[in-house]
């Protein structure tokens, strides 16, 4: 066993400090150490994107980053995006447009989609498909995920316009 490291993270606005072995993957830190079990593990080859979180403004597959690498980072998971009493427009849209079935890819999908819409608030269908290509879904066939993201984009843009 290698020497444990002192690691500080800010996850969903809350400071976390702990000792971890360098080999601890961030997805395990979130799920097993911090009990943030929305991000999931769907593969071991960095393809599926079920573990996607936002780290310092980037969509990252947390299975492909060590907690030690993230030391000092700000992390947002699905739990920090919205909750049952205060859904994010993407969460509402996934519900209304049937953008999920088993729900296993959904936390990674929605977390990735928040960043996609931040970078491109008015994406075309093609841009959504390409922008979500790092997230695999076994249930939906993607069609309703696209619709959900389109609906959320429209909702968020309308809300932004109303606020201005």
């Amino acid at each position, binding site marked *: 066993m290698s020497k444990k490291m002192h690691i500080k993270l800010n996850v969903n606005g809350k400071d976390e400090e702990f000792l971890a*072995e360098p080999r601890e993957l961030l997805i395990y830190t979130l799920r097993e150490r911090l009990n943030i079990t929305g991000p999931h593990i769907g593969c071991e080859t960095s393809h599926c994107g079920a573990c*996607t979180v936002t780290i310092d403004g980037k969509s990252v597959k947390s299975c492909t980053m*060590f907690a030690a690498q993230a030391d000092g980072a700000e992390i947002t998971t699905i739990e920090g995006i919205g909750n049952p009493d205060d859904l994010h427009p993407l969460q509402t849209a996934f519900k209304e447009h049937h953008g999920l079935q088993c729900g296993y890819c959904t936390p990674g999908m929605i977390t*990735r989609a928040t960043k996609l819409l931040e970078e491109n608030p008015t994406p075309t269908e093609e841009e959504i498909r390409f*922008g979500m*290509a*790092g997230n695999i879904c076994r249930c939906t066939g993607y069609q309703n995920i696209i619709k959900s993201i389109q609906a959320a984009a429209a909702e968020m843009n309308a809300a932004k316009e109303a606020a201005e």
Partner: protein
Amino acid sequence: MIPAAFEYYRPKDIAGVLSILEEHGDDARVMAGGHSLIPMMKLRMADVPHLIDLQDVGGMSDITVGGDSIRIGAMVTQADIIDHEGLTTAAPILREAALQIADPQVRYMGTVGGNVANGDPGNDMPGLMQCLDAVFTVIGTDGERDIPARDFYEAAYMTAREDEEVLTAVTIPLPKGGWAYEKQKRKIGDYATAAAAVQIVKDGGTCAAASIAMTNLSDTPVYSEAASNALVGTAVDDAALGAAVAAMLGDIDPTEDNRGPVAFKNHVAGVILRRAIARAWSRA
């Protein structure tokens, strides 16, 4: 999924990196974005007792577009390449290729330096850099040296970089003329079944210069001087395309895997190269 234990280092400068490399030799390895190395560690195909994270080392994340060359720091990510307007204007083939590499999440993390230094023939940037006649700068305890991309790749995962050296930057002569990076793959994020990087200069209706390199069709990227020469002086008509493809096929050496048998890969390589040349020519 579970990597073996290792010691982790996050030095602040290159001197710190080199001293760890020197102390631990083969047992130490640098990590950039981690999106080739960590997957290999998770499968226990890479054994890295001492892991040196380069993220805090300054001076390796800049893109500099100069009058006759472009310098890209090794820690520049694929996402940085895609987002950089000046770079896209100066060398649009880089953005075209980067958009065909991996997926959004991987592109936020994966770096140009890691892509070219990895040594996996599946990586796209090595062939691209050979097409562009890039030079890789590596630094070791004896100082810096430059290695042309066309001389860098020796075999799968074997490159001209010594174990105690770190690749710090890629320098590209400002590309001229039309361009194309054409990649055949099974799906998003897949390494190429075959890919071609082409830069081509048109003078009147004649090809004045051409550069062609192929990806994942040998145990290294393949710069095909013969294919490039087959186009120069021609009107890039069907006969010239056929000659370039024939010359390229003489330089590649694909192996059978689940992307297909050798005959298929040769066929796809020809189709991809024709498409790449046609698109580059149309932009020249």
